[in-house]
């Protein structure tokens, strides 16, 4: 008799747990909508902290120095937004945590709320706007190639039948695959997890070129062992704009981020930040990218907008 009672109570507990889990699971698929209605701001206020996102290694925009420290041009902009939020939400003790992500999982992590918003090197595209929202753009790039000076590659057309590396989850991956198919280039595309791995592929000789946004290529070159060995070549396959990524249709939050960025650009503060990361020595190796502001950049700073190029 007692064993039957024991079993019954175990059965009841398990049934309860399963029911709770199922309800929670189903409930959350609904709750997600409730969270989006009230917005990221409400979430930050309730938790007393904000979860930011950063890339492991996309210098000079967003990269890790080890020991959980993340720095970069985009990280500086992100922290300026946090400072603004402290004022707007009247939370002078607002804490932030930085969660690293890769190009592959950045959108799911924003969508499921793990990360509240991120500024790194995410391109604003029409397709992505269906899943997330973008702030005003803070950088404009062209997608080009990094290759050894003696490799003989001068443009995308020289890549016929060659091995090319790129990073999964980026616009460059889709572009190079499309280019490969449409022009029947017969390239072998090595898609790696992060930009450093793509660079490693070229460094070790597995790939002959690395396709990525030009600013990132300059950053990879500056943080490599032998920067003089590499050259950035090729007419850009595309021009793209970076924006901060946040939950879709969160109007109130986007307004704060946008106004912060506009304020920085109009006041000229952005030029100091640009100089710090693109024209001065940066960690970890103290080399400078020597990448002066392009005409596109100057135009963007003069007229901030959030259009996908």
């Amino acid at each position, binding site marked *: 008799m007692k064993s039957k009672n024991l079993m019954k109570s175990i059965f009841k507990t398990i049934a309860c747990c399963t029911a709770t889990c199922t309800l929670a699971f189903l409930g959350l698929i609904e709750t*997600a*909508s409730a969270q989006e209605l009230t917005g990221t701001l409400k979430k930050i206020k309730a938790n007393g902290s904000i979860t930011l996102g950063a890339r492991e290694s996309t210098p000079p925009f967003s990269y890790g120095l080890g020991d959980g420290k993340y720095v970069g041009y985009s990280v500086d902009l992100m922290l300026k937004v946090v400072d603004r939020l402290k004022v707007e939400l009247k939370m002078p003790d607002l804490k932030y945590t930085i969660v690293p992500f890769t190009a592959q999982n950045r*959108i799911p992590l924003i*969508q499921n709320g793990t990360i509240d918003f991120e500024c790194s090197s995410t391109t604003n595209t029409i397709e992505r706007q269906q899943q997330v929202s973008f702030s005003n753009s803070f950088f404009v790039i062209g997608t080009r190639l990094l290759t050894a000076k003696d490799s003989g590659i001068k443009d995308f057309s020289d890549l016929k039948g060659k*091995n090319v590396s790129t990073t999964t*989850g980026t616009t460059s991956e889709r572009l190079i*695959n499309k280019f490969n*198919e449409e022009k029947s280039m017969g390239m072998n595309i*090595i898609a790696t997890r992060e930009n450093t791995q793509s660079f490693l592929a070229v460094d070790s000789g597995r790939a002959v070129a690395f396709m990525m946004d030009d600013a990132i290529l300059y950053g990879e070159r500056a943080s490599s062992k032998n920067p003089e060995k590499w050259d950035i070549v090729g007419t850009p396959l595309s021009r793209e704009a970076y924006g901060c990524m946040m939950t879709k249709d969160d109007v109130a939050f986007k307004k704060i981020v946008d106004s912060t960025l506009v304020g920085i650009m109009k006041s000229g503060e952005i030029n100091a930040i640009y100089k710090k990361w693109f024209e001065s020595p940066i960690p970890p190796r103290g080399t400078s990218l020597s990448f002066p502001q392009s005409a596109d950049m100057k135009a963007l700073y003069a007229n901030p907008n959030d259009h996908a190029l």
Partner: protein
Amino acid sequence: MAYQWNWYIFLQPASAKDSYLDWLLSGMLTTLQMGCLAWVIAFCLGSLLGVMRTIPNRAVSFLAELYVEIFRNIPLIVQLFMWYYLVPKLMPQEFRTWLFALPPASTSFYTATIGLGLFTAARVCEQVRAGVDVISSGLKNASLSLGLSICQSYQYVLLPITYRTILPPMTSEMLSIFKNSSIASTIGVIDLFTRARQLNEYTAHGYESFIAVILCYLIINTGVMLLMSQVERALRLPGTEGRV
């Protein structure tokens, strides 16, 4: 908005010539190819090592033991990375030039297959060793006293019995090899696991992508189990314990 389920994503085009379903199936094919090829390596090498372990020769036995200890105590992902990065570095430059000129998808695939095969061979070796050890010494001595050499006694007496006895653990090793093949995606093999990540990222429908991939793994799993149960039934030794 609440999550919208959409199972038709698999029929949408992923690129100019493939749909997402084609991606899923190609990933499954790669996983199957990798698993089968790696199993062949593991089985052959593992059997050889298992025999080496049980031969009376101390030096040979020690060599096999060294292999097993090395390949069992390093995690598979570390081993794959070592094969992919470290080994080409230690080879001469001509080897590297030849290797990197090959299509990268092939080099990743074969590197992963070899790594997976060698890793599993260590485990197969232990199974074979256990199987041989379990055979009564009476049988071993009888075969030797009949004039069979050690090699012949293994070939005609010991190994046939061993393989039949260790079929259940070998089935479990076969299942493991298909599961472990998912780790190959970290060195660039475009298998089922890579496709799961790609599907999630390209279609933004995580639930459908992952459920489909899990189903694929379950299908592979069930297929192997069914196959091996047929083999077990066909090869069962009369008089030994077995399921009816």
